[in-house]
């Protein structure tokens, strides 16, 4: 342990899990996880699942689970730790597909989604298009000082979602805004958040209804995810129209903002430790290990919630049926019991496959391949074009709006040809 982290740990000896929802923790939650991880799990964190509206919906207090093995235990027992989100259901926000379903319906839906989500469709087929988009975005920025979080980071994932789902590309600006509002990260007023949720729903409702009509009229429809969701059938099951709309909404909110933060965190490391830039430029096979280690150490998604369907226990602490549990993947990703020097950025860790950023078990992120693909194309585009990335004239600031994501609000950098 370094002197600095020893000091932080002793300062935080009395820190309680219920205080995690505060701006200074959200900006850098990791010292706080360290202070709590080896204590018995604590109850009382009130924070907001995706889609809910602070100031309007009332959060349920939750147990805070921070140890790697405890998180795994929760993830491997979906029948005890349910993903149904009562708070989201009670709110006006659309509930998410798969993310908030339990078996047996989850398994049925996942099977249908898997048909639509063929790796070829969402990865190989769109890679050349994605490379073109990255080129276009970098052309616009050219060189010199740029805030990476202003356009480069959020635009790529939003554009990818328009392409994959099959709506006009120029609507990506709308998608960006809606995803931000839904994920409870950025500063929105209650009214703005509600308005965004309504617009998001209406947008996909219109698009999906049009597509059903086109299919019914025998028109040729594009081979995109929207058509695939409508037409996919597994074991005699198909999606209802409402489920197709909810799938589109889920993809946008799950895929747009989180990936933007991932891209920002990758760039942050390249600026912080410039030797990685040179190593990656010389050997592109290091890009994938670089992305994986960033996903582990700085994975954007911090935690998701589960609800207990029966009395149970986690790490020796008894918890009751109906209790909420917040599982902190990001804390598991820095648990020293699993990771050597967990705060250091180390390429090619032998156990890197164990990171929890895309969750663990039946709810493992179906879009993980898309996120990795976007990260790969962005890094390749930057490495092709520039000789270095230097710090910009102002410091890089972390967002403090919500505990769901660890990511940058601003990332001023200098792109050097």
């Amino acid at each position, binding site marked *: 342990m370094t002197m600095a982290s020893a000091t932080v740990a002793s300062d935080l000896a009395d820190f309680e899990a219920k205080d995690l929802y505060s701006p200074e923790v959200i900006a850098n939650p990791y010292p706080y996880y360290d202070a709590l991880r080896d204590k018995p799990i604590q109850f009382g964190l009130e924070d907001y699942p995706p889609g809910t509206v602070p100031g309007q919906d009332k959060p349920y207090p939750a147990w805070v689970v921070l140890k790697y093995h405890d998180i795994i235990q929760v993830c*491997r027992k979906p029948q005890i730790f349910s993903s149904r989100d009562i708070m989201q259901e009670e709110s006006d926000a659309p509930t998410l597909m798969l993310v908030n379903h339990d078996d047996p319906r989850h398994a049925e839906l*996942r099977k249908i989604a*898997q048909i639509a989500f*063929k*790796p*070829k469709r969402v*990865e*190989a087929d769109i890679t050349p298009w994605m490379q073109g988009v990255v080129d276009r975005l970098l052309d616009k920025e050219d060189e010199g000082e740029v805030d990476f979080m202003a356009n480069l980071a959020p635009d790529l994932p939003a554009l990818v979602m328009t392409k994959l789902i099959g709506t006009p590309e120029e609507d990506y600006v709308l998608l960006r805004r809606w995803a931000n509002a839904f994920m409870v990260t950025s500063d929105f007023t209650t009214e703005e958040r509600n308005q965004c949720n309504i617009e998001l729903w209406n947008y996909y409702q219109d698009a999906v209804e049009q597509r059903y009509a086109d299919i019914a009229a025998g028109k040729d429809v594009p081979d995109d995810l929207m058509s695939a969701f409508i037409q996919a059938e597994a074991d005699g099951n198909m999606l209802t129209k409402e489920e197709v709309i909810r799938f589109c909404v889920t993809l946008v909110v799950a895929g747009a903002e989180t990936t933007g933060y991932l891209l920002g965190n990758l760039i942050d490391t390249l600026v912080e430790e410039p030797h990685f830039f040179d190593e990656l430029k010389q050997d592109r*096979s290091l890009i*994938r*290990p670089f*992305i*994986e*280690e960033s996903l582990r150490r700085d994975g954007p998604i911090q935690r998701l919630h589960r609800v207990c369907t029966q009395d149970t226990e986690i790490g020796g602490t008894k918890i009751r049926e109906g209790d909420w549990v917040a599982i902190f993947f990001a804390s598991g990703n820095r648990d020293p019991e699993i990771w050597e020097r967990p705060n250091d950025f180390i390429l*090619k*860790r*032998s*156990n*890197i*496959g*164990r990171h*929890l950023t*895309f*969750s*663990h*078990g*039946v709810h*493992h*992120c*179906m879009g*993980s391949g898309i996120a990795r693909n976007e990260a790969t194309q962005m890094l390749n585009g930057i490495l092709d074009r520039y000789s270095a990335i230097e710090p910009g004239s102002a410091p890089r600031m972390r967002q403090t709006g919500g505990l769901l994501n660890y990511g940058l609000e601003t990332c001023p950098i200098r792109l050097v040809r």
Partner: protein
Amino acid sequence: MVTIIAVDRDGEEHRIDARVGEPLMLALRDNDVDVEAVCGGEMSCLTCHVYIDPTWLEQIGKRTGEEADMLDDQLYSHPESRLSCQITISPDLDGLRCTVAPPEG
């Protein structure tokens, strides 16, 4: 129950028991031979990737379409590559030998 011979990433050989009717992935994951299987068999994470010993390939059968799609783009994909979550243990797989593939990261 059948016996599987699994070679971990350090080249060490393990003889492990596998239950008939269950995915090979479960036996590998639960015996700590470097198979993380983080998605639990959803064909989503690629962390249960193994190489099947060539003498067993015919017995094991071909990859499914989606599995082949998943494996195609991988750095360490070989002709003997399979996702162990997609292989169901049957009595005639007694003695199956496989090697855990390197992590993609």
